[in-house]
């Protein structure tokens, strides 16, 4: 059985040695300033639990800043039995894996219709997820060969979105809601869910996103999935592939 208590490993078991680098807003000009800067770095290292610590590199950057590389021995212990792993309900897949999953499950392209609904003119969210340009270093859904993306843009009326998603035989509808005055995003999501419920089957997967959404509210709003702040295109694509493999949206309700 593996040891439940571990420490960082430098070159000997249990030596606790780590390396960190950081910048402090202190000058590194005169001899006095240099000594003070190194002392400041050692103080921070001590408070971070590095004891003993050694400043191996210090360099002034401009007149007011100094960069440090520090090696030291951390006094902290890691208790592996206390590590909890929160698993998302779906695995993060690469673009190639998403494409393969879609091909396997559908034998055709997955159709995604995206829009900003109501009076919301902020397409920055939906575009970050859909445009090839993407977001946070990840390409948008248009980049995925097995996804067909229809981006309706901003200020789309909900009935128009329902009609268009039926015409496109959408597998998933993505709606971004940035404007949140008087809980417009919550009302928008409810209106969306109600409109698709009224339209009858086949109902596409309904996914909403926006910076002010609470991801745990999906069920109460009647949508399949909510993505909050900081969502990347890869997460959305992975979710679509997962939800699809799990069965069509109808099976899950």
């Amino acid at each position, binding site marked *: 059985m593996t040891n439940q208590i571990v420490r960082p490993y430098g070159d000997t078991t249990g030596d606790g040695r780590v390396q960190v680098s950081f910048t402090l807003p202190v000058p590194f000009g005169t001899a006095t300033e240099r000594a003070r800067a190194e002392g400041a770095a050692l103080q921070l290292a001590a408070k971070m639990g590095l004891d003993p610590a050694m400043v191996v590199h210090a360099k002034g*950057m401009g007149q007011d*800043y100094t*960069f440090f590389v520090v090696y030291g021995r951390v006094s902290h212990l890691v208790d592996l039995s206390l590590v909890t792993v929160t698993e998302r309900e779906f695995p993060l897949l690469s673009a190639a894996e998403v494409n393969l999953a879609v091909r396997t499950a559908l034998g055709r392209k997955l159709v995604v219709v995206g829009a900003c609904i109501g009076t919301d003119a902020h397409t920055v969210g939906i575009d*970050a997820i859909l445009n090839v340009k993407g977001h946070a270093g990840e390409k948008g859904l248009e980049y995925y060969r097995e996804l067909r993306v229809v981006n309706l843009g901003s200020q789309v009326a909900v009935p128009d979105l329902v009609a268009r998603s039926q015409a496109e035989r959408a597998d998933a509808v993505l709606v971004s809601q940035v404007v949140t005055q008087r809980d417009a995003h919550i009302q928008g999501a409810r209106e969306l869910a109600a409109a698709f419920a009224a339209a009858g089957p086949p109902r596409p997967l309904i996914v909403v996103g926006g910076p002010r959404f609470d991801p745990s509210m999906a069920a109460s709003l009647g949508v399949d999935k909510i993505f909050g702040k900081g969502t990347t295109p890869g997460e959305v694509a992975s979710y679509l592939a997962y939800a699809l493999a799990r069965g069509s949206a109808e099976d899950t309700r």
Partner: protein
Amino acid sequence: MQSRLNLDPVAVREARELAARAGQPIVEMARTHTTVSVERAVLRLAGLAGADNDGMPLVNHLVDAVRQSAGLEHGVALPAWDAMLAGGYHDLAALAEAAALGKVAFRLPSGEDAAAARTAAQSALRGGIGRIDASRARRQQMIDQTAEPGKPWIYLIVATGDIYEDIPQAQAAAREGADIIAVIRSTGQSLLDYVPEGATREGYAGTYATQENFRLMRAALDETSRELGRYVRLTNYASGLCMPEIAALAGLERLDMMLNDCMYGIIFRDINPRRTFIDQRFARQIHARAGIIINTGEDNYLTTADAVEAAHTVVVSQLLNEFFGKEAGLADEQLGLGHAFEINPAVPDSFLLELAHAQLVRELFPHAPLKYMPPTKHMTGNVFAGYLLDAFFNLCGVMTDQSILLIGMMTEGIHTPFLSDRDLALENVRYVRNAAGRLGESFVPAAGGFIEQRAQQVLGESVGLLRRICDDGLLNAIADGTFGITRRPADGGRGLDGVIERADDYFNPAAEILESGIGR
């Protein structure tokens, strides 16, 4: 220049001829159409600035009002200046404010009224283009008073969203060694069909491009240029739905370089292809007059497609950008064609392949200030390996005599650069430049060797693709997904409703001056 790659001059000539053939129908389209943004740019050049209380610019109000009552097929100028003379408005702003309230009936004047409107418009635009000429002269004056930095120019990015935070960061970057400061725009500004107004302090992963932000940053960098005794250039982005307007503002406020690609907006932002090409031609005519160096965006193709398989699409796009740029009046020295170091480092001989591609581009465009982009796709979060890869990028850059090096950050894709990331990146490039800056003169790939063969192969594939594009038509090729991986049909995407076919008597007093070179 003697080719170090034994490139076949016949193939090089054929590639250029094919690019011209592919591009010519697009130029014809641009000459026979206008767009709402082209017309708004005319008004901006005539000095119309400002916005209503909701932030909608007066140029949008005026162009929309003219479009509604008189149409834009004759251009905005005749109806606008006619209404100004007839209504006794003292300037365009007064006219635009009245037009926004629906108080102005525009018409297409004829006879003496038309002649008077035409004369007034021409005079206003001579003034506006004169201001661009003055900015250009001022740039030269600043360079003479400070100094022109040696190449490669080092290009660094700031992007806080707040222009007042950007300014000290940009000045610090310049002091640390940057020759060029690029202010990244707020995500999605390219999709706005208007240019925001005033100094801005909020943006999404970038700072809005506005006339006031341009002015503030240029003034700050002038101060730093004097302090350093070296002219620090300023870059922004003209791509998107407002390309001509932003080009006009850049010319007026003396930006030095502008991102302006012939196909980037189409492929990566789903902007309508016709709109893009029409806007682009006028935008580049303005850049040409302003002495602005354009930067093209071929590096982006390699972030979506494989950098080895798609190497020839970069060359094809560069040749198209060159053709469109020269047609619009840009000199070789203004063509900052783009490319990138994006080959997977796990591929055997990846550095040799990068050298072959970079040297090929250098030789195809010997006088262009090439802009070379660092690795992004294969920066994995292992910052130590990333630092090494950036050093190889810098080495390839100096060996193949690239003109503008965008400095790679070891934390690419993790967060916006820390102060220390930027400092380390500059230390990296300084070391390489100091240690190997003159290696280029001795870099002569072996005749018949791997590098030479690879370069010739990419050139051959480029000619092959250009032939297919010529047969197919460029708009069809774009619709078929030839560039990047995205299909962009000619009638799809954003902004097509802003495209108008010109009438026979179309009048654009700015284009008249730009195309004839009056006053130069």
